[in-house]
């Protein structure tokens, strides 16, 4: 388990935007994960997708990492931003784009 936590810590440290999700960005396997993928694609930000279904240790590890019991989970510059509801709410209010701008993450939309 500590290996999984270390992997998660490294992944979110080395990549600006990371989405832990069920399935992949190309083939989401859960409606909530799919919603976040669509929002990130709409905003036009580059991100790394991590399929938690491919690794049970990561799946549990990411829940322990942030004390957050559900997937998807979005990280920007190492900071946990939230799950599906929070990302959607932030997208609707424009806060998500502002967050990317604040953090210096390039968006194309």
């Amino acid at each position, binding site marked *: 388990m500590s290996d999984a936590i270390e992997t998660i810590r490294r992944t979110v440290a080395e990549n600006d935007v990371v989405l832990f999700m069920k399935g992949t960005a190309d083939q989401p396997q859960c409606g*909530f994960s799919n919603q976040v993928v669509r929002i990130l694609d709409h905003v036009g930000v580059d991100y790394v997708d991590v399929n938690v279904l491919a690794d049970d240790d990561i799946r549990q590890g990411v*829940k322990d990492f942030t004390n957050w019991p559900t997937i998807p989970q979005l990280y920007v510059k190492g900071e946990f931003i939230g799950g599906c509801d929070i990302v959607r709410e932030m997208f609707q209010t424009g806060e998500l784009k502002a967050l990317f701008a604040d953090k210096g993450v390039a968006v194309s939309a």
Partner: protein
Amino acid sequence: MPMSVQSLENLLREAFPDADIRIDDLAGDGDHYRAVVRSDAFKGKSRVAQHQLVYAALKGRMGGELHALALDTGPKTA
């Protein structure tokens, strides 16, 4: 295992005695809920912290017994 609206509401009520709570059973299967919770316990807290309080109130059921719970949280007075 599905969870009843009543037991979900009881857990939330216990954790947030002052709250206005509304629970919708989205799919009618006792497994996909949406909860709107307005409590002063959320005042001044980030969304992540607010949702973590709700998950704590559910005592580990979220992600297990309870598959899907959409959350809309906030303080009572905007």
